[in-house]
């Protein structure tokens, strides 16, 4: 659908744990197609400290209720204010923004690797891949078991694997310590990842070694979110590209990352 700015109504604010919330936001208009990988830019109203909009991946879309959901990890003032959104209130939202993940045209075995709030961009991707009968595996890394949320939701769309740095759940260590990203990686035709940069670099390196198709969803500091400020660039083989319009999804082959 084309980009719009709308006041979306908060119809649910689910608290997952101390610092993770999911907001479900309803449009008065019929939603047209929104693609996995796209994001929304939310205005934090009445804040004396937060000036710019805050970008969040579109976590899921419900075309019958005309809702989009965003998954919010509290890290500062903006995310804290949004996490307190009251059901019935409205949030000024610009969406859908950015490009999209490339989906396979034929059935494939695919691996999704997420960490931190990066899991947010993988939910609608997992759902779409599953709906097209791909064989989906989802690997989620976290610091500790309490940071692993929405696993049941992910498990509707594929096999879920986990790692925790403190070993409280799944394999102990980083995602790269997990066998699916290591010995078993060759079984996959595609890898998608979103999370902290060191994690994505490690994933990209593994995929590159085995020449597996790999797309990453990047973050960046954004002032506008729709390609006019040129603040959000990343280096690619074709020069600087805007993460907000030419991304956030990039194939690892075009990124100039030292991996």
């Amino acid at each position: 659908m084309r980009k719009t700015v709308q006041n979306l109504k908060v119809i649910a604010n689910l608290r997952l744990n101390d610092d993770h919330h999911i907001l479900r936001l309803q449009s008065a208009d019929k939603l047209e197609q929104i693609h996995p990988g796209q994001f929304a830019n939310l205005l934090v109203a009445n804040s004396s400290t937060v000036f710019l909009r805050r970008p969040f991946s579109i976590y899921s879309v419900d075309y019958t209720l005309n809702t989009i959901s965003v998954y919010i990890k509290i890290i500062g003032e903006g995310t804290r204010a949004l996490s307190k959104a009251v059901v019935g209130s409205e949030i000024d939202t610009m969406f859908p923004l950015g490009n999209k993940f490339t989906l396979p045209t034929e059935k494939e075995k695919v691996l999704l690797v997420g960490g931190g709030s990066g899991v947010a961009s993988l939910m609608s991707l997992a759902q779409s891949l599953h709906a097209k009968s791909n064989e989906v595996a989802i690997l989620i890394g976290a610091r500790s078991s309490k940071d692993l949320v929405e696993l049941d939701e992910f498990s509707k769309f594929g096999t879920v694997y986990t790692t925790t740095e403190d070993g409280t759940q799944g394999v102990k260590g980083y995602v790269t310590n997990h066998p699916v990203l290591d010995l078993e990686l060759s079984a996959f035709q595609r890898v998608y990842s979103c999370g902290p940069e060191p994690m994505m670099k490690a994933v990209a390196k593994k995929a590159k070694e085995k020449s597996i198709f790999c797309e990453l969803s990047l973050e960046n500091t954004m002032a506008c979110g729709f390609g006019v400020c040129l603040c959000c660039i990343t280096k690619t083989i074709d020069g600087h590209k805007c993460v907000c319009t030419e991304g956030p999804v990039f194939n690892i082959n075009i990124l100039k990352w030292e991996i």
Partner: protein
Amino acid sequence: MGDLTVNIHNLKLKNPVLTASGTFGYGLEYDDFIDVSRLGGIVVKGTTIHPRQGNEYPRMAETASGMLNSVGLQNKGAKYFATDIYPKLLKYDTNILVNVSGSTIEEYIACAEIINELDHIPGIELNISCPNVKEGGMAFGTSCASIDAVVSAVRKVYHKTMVVKLSPNVTDIGELARAAEASGADSLSLINTLMAMAIDAERRKPILATITGGLSGPAVKPIALRQVWEVSKSVKVPIIGMGGIMNATDAIEFFLAGASAIQVGTANYLDPMITIKIIDGIDDYLNRHKFSSIHDIIGGLQL
């Protein structure tokens, strides 16, 4: 409905609301949100003769009521603009100005010459005030001698409306404004961003890759108003005011301080429809105060 039309030299603006360079792309990015032809004019991205990759990332830092940027004039060059972008802008019924920049006087001239050939570009905004490039840019805008050198050189090759964009990073803006006027500027626009800095205390590092950057947004409005006021007392050419305009009331303040037109910058990022709301809001103000024309408030500050 009050009369919102203003003239900036040979430019006839249907209303006094333009968009600030670097905040409106080429206008095309706004097609999903507004009818760009409703604007008095648009000033497209900073353009240089050679393509520029701009500065390293991170290029943006949010600050109290504003933001810093250090984009550094990323653009694909004047020739690319003329061949690839310009044809797409012909659909707009508004004044399209190109913001021209360079590292040397020769580069300014070469860029202005290319833009001079484009029939539907009625003017340029000469950017002698970009704080984010190592060479040229703001260096030209901070002394009367260098202003005279670059403005008169471009004046010789550029025959349509030439707006000169002033830097706020100076001690006596009135004096520099007079220099630009004397060297052939048809209009002056101000302010460009203020040189500023943001530091991450935890990491003990600057937030921007370039260490310093340009401050914009509501934080700069009081400084912008003061400088527009000073310049309006110093020159006869029309002034285009900007700096932190977020709504119609802010815009009115600039008219009162002496601006004949205004540009909206950073506010476009927050609300891509803001320019239209500002046009409507100015009209409301005129009606509310029973003024028939925008000219009734330009320089209308009651002292």
